[in-house]
């Protein structure tokens, strides 16, 4: 009964969306029909009904309703309750429902924020959002219905894939989807603007807020995904340039460019075309990402197990989302007044260069990700494009972006005087900070390490040396935090790649092994019974022998888990996080009666990667908070 109500709710969402698109359309075509105002309640209705739908699905999971095919495939009565709820978005059908939910939620937010003045422009924005919701509802209903019944009803479900039974599953997909889908808002604003006879609505200003919110979610989602892969997958890596990962990186790259471009558009009416195109492409890249993960078109460990036909519908939707806005864009090309750029030494030009760099990076990652597929499609054979290629391209481009970030702090909007004296001070201090970082962090004179540390030093000096630092600091703390964040992540990633080390060895109770300053003692093997698994656990004691004898060591317990329902073995690594390294130990194969293969790694500076990501997200949150404060005070002023 409950699944049917949920299904009905989903269909209802479709109807709300249909009317939510129809009403503003009719109202625009016929001025005398004052039905545009109903777009708002229709949007609210759609959000409510899809929320009901997804909540009922979650409820069915907790009730162990295995008569629903989706639940039987992804759940089990032994599954802990948090994972039962998380399993809602753990599989293809459920995650598409989550897409509909996210779209409706964002439409709801846009409607709520703009509820005081129900302008025609916003009704158009909501029209586009509702069309998207309708498209995804139809997609879900006709190709990926999560409420499909299963007969005969199995006694037990197939269990959630043990790799997904982790807190990562609870937070990573929702944040990621909210991010992906969030860019639909900016997309809708851009397309709505293209449909207006004039472009005088301050679309850039409000779009920037929505882009910021989406970007924050997406950054958090990607970072969480990387963190989850790191501690779950067992080999100490955090980014694999896997097609699915790249698919999430692409909208992030264009989304970051979009944030900056919108700033230039809002403040100086510059880069208008860039902002439009970035808005269109970011959301389209989100859809592309969703398509890639589900269609099986690219080989990946992260891919959902679905057949190609489900992908084709997404592909058609993507085609529409590209063709219509781009055609509108070209049609309105003449309307866009090119902003006056006063001088090469202006922030506008810097942002232009930055946009270009992000675009080049995005296109390159796209090229590398799809190249094997194109290669194969033209029967040229099978090749692989992996980390070596992407790193070769990514690192130099990142260096250039860092240089720009630093320069942007003292090159202002409009016209900037190139103050040679100031530049000299900055360069001098950069060298100072650079030598400091080099001595503290580097272990050798690797050229890439040198270059990145130089770029980061430049950025940090430029950030902190801004004129009237304290006044500027609090005014732009959000910006500084986010930029410092990316610098910290970059250092972390760089040092992690170059200064990690490992050792693989046979160990049993009583044995010990040394890796640099780390000594690992194997105390004993234990047997653990978990909620839905059994495990062999190695009790290890680790001590830092470079410190004095009195320092306390610590215990680590890597496991090898066996999940009976899905007949899967999984290695759960044990990690000890220190400020400058992670001790990462995996329990491997059983080599004989008492001994196991153990892989002990020192992953350098891993925490810096996460710290940087946290700073970036905090920066985003602070920026949003600032906007909220400004907006509420402005509204208060207006009211007075």
């Amino acid at each position, binding site marked *: 009964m409950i699944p049917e109500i949920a299904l009905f709710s989903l269909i209802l969402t479709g109807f709300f969306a249909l009317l939510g698109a129809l009403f503003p359309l009719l109202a625009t075509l016929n001025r005398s029909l004052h039905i545009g105002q109903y777009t708002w309640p229709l949007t609210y209705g759609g959000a409510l009904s899809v929320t009901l739908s997804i909540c009922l699905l979650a409820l069915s999971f907790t009730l162990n309703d295995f008569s629903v095919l989706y639940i039987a*495939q992804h759940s089990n009565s032994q599954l802990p309750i948090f994972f039962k709820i998380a399993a809602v978005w753990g599989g293809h059908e459920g995650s598409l429902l989550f897409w509909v939910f996210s779209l409706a939620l964002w439409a709801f937010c846009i409607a709520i924020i703009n509820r005081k003045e129900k302008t025609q422009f916003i009704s158009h924005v909501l029209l586009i959002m509702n069309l998207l919701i309708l498209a995804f509802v139809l997609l879900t209903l006709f190709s990926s219905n999560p409420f499909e019944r299963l007969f005969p009803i199995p006694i037990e479900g*197939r269990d959630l*894939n043990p*790799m997904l039974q982790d807190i990562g599953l609870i937070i990573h997909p929702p944040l990621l989807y909210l991010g992906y889908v969030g860019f639909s808002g900016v997309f809708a604003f851009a397309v709505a603007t293209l449909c207006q006879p004039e472009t005088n609505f301050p679309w850039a200003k409000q779009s920037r807020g929505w882009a910021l919110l989406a970007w924050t979610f997406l950054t958090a989602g990607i970072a969480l995904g990387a963190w989850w892969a790191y501690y779950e*997958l*067992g*080999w100490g890596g955090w980014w*694999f340039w896997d*097609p699915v990962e790249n698919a999430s990186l692409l909208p992030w790259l264009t989304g970051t460019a979009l944030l900056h471009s919108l700033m230039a558009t809002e403040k100086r009416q510059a880069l208008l075309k860039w902002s439009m195109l970035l808005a269109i492409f970011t959301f389209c890249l989100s859809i592309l990402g969703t398509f890639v993960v589900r269609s*099986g078109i690219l*080989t*990946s*460990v992260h*891919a*959902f*197990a679905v057949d190609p036909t489900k992908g084709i519908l997404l592909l058609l939707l993507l085609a529409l989302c590209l063709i219509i806005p781009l055609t509108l864009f070209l049609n309105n090309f003449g309307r866009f007044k*090119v902003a*006056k*750029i*006063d*001088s*090469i030494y202006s922030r506008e*030009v810097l942002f*232009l*260069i930055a946009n*270009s760099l992000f*675009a*080049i990076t995005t*296109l*390159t990652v796209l*090229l*590398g990700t799809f*190249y094997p597929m194109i*290669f194969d499609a033209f029967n*040229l*054979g*099978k*090749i*692989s*494009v*992996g*980390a*070596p*290629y992407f790193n070769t391209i990514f690192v130099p481009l990142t260096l250039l972006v860092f240089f720009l970030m630093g320069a942007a702090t003292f090159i202002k909007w409009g016209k900037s005087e190139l103050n040679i004296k100031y530049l000299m001070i900055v360069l001098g201090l950069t060298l100072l900070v650079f030598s400091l970082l080099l001595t503290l962090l580097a272990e050798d004179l690797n050229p890439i390490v040198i270059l990145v540390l130089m770029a980061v030093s430049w950025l940090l000096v430029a950030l902190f040396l801004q004129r009237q630092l304290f006044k500027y600091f609090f005014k732009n703390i959000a910006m500084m935090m986010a930029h410092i964040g990316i610098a910290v992540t970059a250092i972390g990633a760089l040092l992690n790649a170059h200064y990690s*080390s*490992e050792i*693989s*060895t*046979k160990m049993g109770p009583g044995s010990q092994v040394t890796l640099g300053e780390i000594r690992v003692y194997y105390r004993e093997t234990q047997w653990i019974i978990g909620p839905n698994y059994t495990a062999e656990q190695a009790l290890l004691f680790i001590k830092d022998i470079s410190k004095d004898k009195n320092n306390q060591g610590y215990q680590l317990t890597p496991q090898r888990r066996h999940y009976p329902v*899905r*007949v*899967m*073995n*999984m*290695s759960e690594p044990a990690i000890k996080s220190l400020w400058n390294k992670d001790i990462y130990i995996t329990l*491997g*194969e059983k*080599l004989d009666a008492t001994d196991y*293969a153990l*892989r002990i790694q020192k992953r350098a500076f891993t925490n810096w990667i996460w710290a940087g990501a946290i700073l970036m997200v905090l920066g985003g949150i602070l920026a949003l908070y600032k906007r909220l404060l400004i907006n509420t005070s402005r509204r208060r002023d207006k009211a007075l």
Partner: protein
Amino acid sequence: MKNIFMLLILFIHIFLLNFACAKESSNTPLNAIFSPANSEQIKQVETFVFKNISEQTRAINLSRELRCPQCLNQNLMESNSPIAKDLRLIVYQMVDQGKSNNEIIEFMTQRFGDFVLYNPPFNQRTYLLWLGPLLLILLFVIAGIIAVRKSISKD
């Protein structure tokens, strides 16, 4: 009798799983559970001792650049499948014997094709891949200069 029964249960599980899920990722692929005969090689690869640190680093870095032919996009260090471990052992042994990276890559591509290289070769068919980014940079630089010039000169 009981053993045959257990085996049967497991077979049924695998049969069903094969039907239901094509691209499941797992730390240990199912066939590894049933493939017993390479424990000697596993021992060797997991406990391999190199002559010195730089050799170990070279071997590990090269293994990271080679793709496991059987897996869903994993390199030889990441994958736990038997063939990945076998190939990794060969990489280790060849490094130990003093063979160069190019020789080891040649060995692998002779048997498995360019597919196993995560660092794609630079040949006629990959010009677009390697030169594409450079071309893009050039295009954007030219377009940018034209746009900025036009905008500045407008008055």
